[in-house]
């Protein structure tokens, strides 16, 4: 109401300044306008508030938490504060054990921890944390912590008796290095690096590098799938855009039908088709094209991942392409030909550039979706068709190294954002056209 009043006043008294104008109920116009503006903003905010709250709780907050987990490192500093302090004077570069005071501090830390109620004890998670760095640390911690009450001076000998690991400088280096509340060690591991004894970061032995090649494979697979969806999607979209609406719609249903089918059903269907005793192999054997003992292995490897994912992601390429192509007037091509261009030149120089926004949108969609794809490679990828997301899932569910999973996830997120930024610089995100 106030807004309507204000605009009426504005219309009638244009020559007077806003300060001196008042609305019908005596409020200065400026304030009334401001209030109306604020109300409109609040109203707009109210409209988007559910979405904002939703995004915050289920998207931004968990992502932030994941990123936090990839550097969070409370276990050592919380459980072994005295040891960490005592270790300050110790030189990790020297290849010798820390002095007796450090062992005494560790004894005190363990003893204090054992006093706590079980739920608050830190030795369990401390052992898990240290075991990521040094194999055997878990049993060293749990076994020692339990008998530490009976230890007598000199503690050093008691500790060395309790577990051989306390006699190795390596574990002390790790405790000293990881004694801060934040750590880089998950990222070090996620980038196939490790700490050398002198504290510098070096590349792992060739046989133990996993993640970088897996990242590269993920990008290569996604690029291949992007290329295939483009090669398959472009002609069909073009054909559909030239057809009359009714026939185009019919074809569109064929594109959309698999899109509406459950992902699991489609992936399982590919297993039925592609496996060694599957439809395709049996047909080929039946026709005598391949021998019974040389059946093709097309599933549980990279081929399986590529075939199934190309099929699943095809609609994401076809839909934006088609809607962009529908909007290109056929008269442009006719004009180009009328001006003397050969069909190929007309296509290359007039038609194709106009489809670029569609290609860009479809390409970004397909590429970014496939980088994070999980279910399909897990079901049909075998070992060679695994992607980085499968490795993240493994660390979440079976190896339970959530810090490493979070570091890998963060790296994946960052690389997608970099790719998007590069795309934006090269092509411009505003040229994306989804229809």
């Amino acid at each position, binding site marked *: 109401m106030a807004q309507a009043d204000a605009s009426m006043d504005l219309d009638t008294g244009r020559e007077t300044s806003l300060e001196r104008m008042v609305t019908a109920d005596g409020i200065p116009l400026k304030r009334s306008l401001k209030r109306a503006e604020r109300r409109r903003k609040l109203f707009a905010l109210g409209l988007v508030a559910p979405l904002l709250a939703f995004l915050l709780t289920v998207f931004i907050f968990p992502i932030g938490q994941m990123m936090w987990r990839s550097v969070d490192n409370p276990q050592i500093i919380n459980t072994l504060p005295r040891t960490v302090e005592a270790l300050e004077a110790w030189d990790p570069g020297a290849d010798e054990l820390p002095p007796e005071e450090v062992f005494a501090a560790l004894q005190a830390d363990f003893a204090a921890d054992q006093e706590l109620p079980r739920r608050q004890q830190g030795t369990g998670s401390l052992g898990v944390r240290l075991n990521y760095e040094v194999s055997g640390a878990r049993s060293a911690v749990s076994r020692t912590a339990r008998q530490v009450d009976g230890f007598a001076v000199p503690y050093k000998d008691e500790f060395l008796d309790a577990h051989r690991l306390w006699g190795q400088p390596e574990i002390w280096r790790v405790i000293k290095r990881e004694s801060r509340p934040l750590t880089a060690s998950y990222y070090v591991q996620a980038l196939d690096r490790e700490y050398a004894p002198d504290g510098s970061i070096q590349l792992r032995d060739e046989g*133990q590098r996993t993640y970088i090649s897996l990242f590269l494979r993920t990008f290569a697979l996604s690029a291949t799938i992007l290329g295939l969806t483009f090669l398959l999607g472009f002609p069909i979209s073009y054909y559909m855009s030239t057809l009359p609406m009714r026939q185009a719609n019919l074809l569109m249903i064929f594109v959309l039908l698999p899109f509406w089918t459950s992902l699991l059903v489609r992936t399982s269907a590919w297993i039925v088709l592609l496996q060694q005793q599957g439809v395709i192999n049996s047909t080929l054997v039946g026709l005598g094209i391949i021998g019974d003992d040389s059946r093709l292995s097309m599933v549980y490897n990279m081929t399986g991942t590529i075939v199934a994912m190309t099929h699943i992601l095809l609609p994401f390429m076809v839909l934006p392409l088609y809607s962009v192509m529908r909007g290109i007037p056929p008269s442009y091509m006719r004009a180009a030909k009328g001006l003397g261009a050969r069909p190929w030149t007309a296509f290359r120089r007039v038609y194709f550039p106009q489809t670029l926004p569609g290609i860009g949108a479809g390409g970004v969609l397909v590429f970014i979706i496939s980088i994070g794809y999980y279910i399909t490679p897990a079901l049909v990828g075998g070992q060679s068709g695994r992607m980085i997301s499968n490795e993240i899932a493994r660390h979440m*569910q079976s*190896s339970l190294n959530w810090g490493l999973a979070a570091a890998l996830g963060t790296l994946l997120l960052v690389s997608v954002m970099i790719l998007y930024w590069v795309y934006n610089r090269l092509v411009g995100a505003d040229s994306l056209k989804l229809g």
Partner: protein
Amino acid sequence: MSQRLLKVIGAGSAVSLLAMSAAQAQDISLTVVSWGGAYTESQVRAYHEPWMEMNPEWEIINDDGSANALAGLRSQSEAGSVTWDLVDMLPSDAQLACEEGIILPIDHDEMLADGEDGTPPSEDFLEGSLGECFIPQIIYSTVVTYNRDMFEEGNYPETIEDFFDTENFPGRRAIQNRPAVNMEWALYADGVDPEEIYDVLATPEGQERAFAKLDTIKDDLVFWEEGAQSPQLLADQEVSFATGYNGRIFEAAEVEGQPFEIIWDGQVVEFDGWVVPADGENVDEVMEYLYWATDTQRLADQASYISYGPARHSSQDLVGQHADLGIDMAEHMPTHPDNYFAPIELNNEFWTDWRDELAERFNNWMAQ
């Protein structure tokens, strides 16, 4: 008129809701997490169904989450909403969860039933099976199995060495996608004495040796993840050999009639059992149920449905016949003398220490 009707309906439904919630307050609903498939089925028939028959107000809901039990327990505990009441879990994971304080410590003699002959639980359960927070239930084994139809008669494999011999016993082999059990077998096939396997495996040279042995069959390997996959791969003739849990193989061979043969040589034996999440809502009820479900007769009953050995001494003689097939179960147990001639006892302490490092290496090795 319609308003009055609405009021009546409203009042009526409020009353019935109240009545329902009052009724539900007496009902006890437990969520029991286990491994799914034939194994959960055996627990349902041996424990859950008889209990619910005796106590109609109890309801036991099954959840097949045991493969990721530790992850589930941790995340439920961190989120502060524990929905699992009882979890079937491996002893190594149970030990980890115990040290993290997310499952209850168990005083076995206090909380569990004595054996039928009066032996206290701490002596009645098999040696080495009890854990701080762990209530043993069965002893199971991981075995190599082959499909008879994939080999010529008279030339059947018999040892773990044969499993690694691709020349005389060609065909693909399915193994689990983790280092435990596989690395033990690699060393065993390479001539290491079962008693010394873990000492060798704790050295870098021993690990190299195991990977080198696995390399010799790598081209023929297929990897499985969940227990149900290995009998499936074998039945589909996708592989000639598969490693798997003896109970599931038994189920496929005896109940479904698949031509599977177990190689008992080098069977890797381990316990499996119950743990109780620390912050569950029905801890008292769960303990009441467990007291009954882990007594002598109940453990023996489970063996009528699946070929896993009961974890109590006093249950051994009560093991009878399969409930549906009527065959003697004793000879299908991993612990039967005919089968227990060269067992490898899974060393959980070794794997809790080395799992992180060797799982990374194994994973890497699989991907290469």
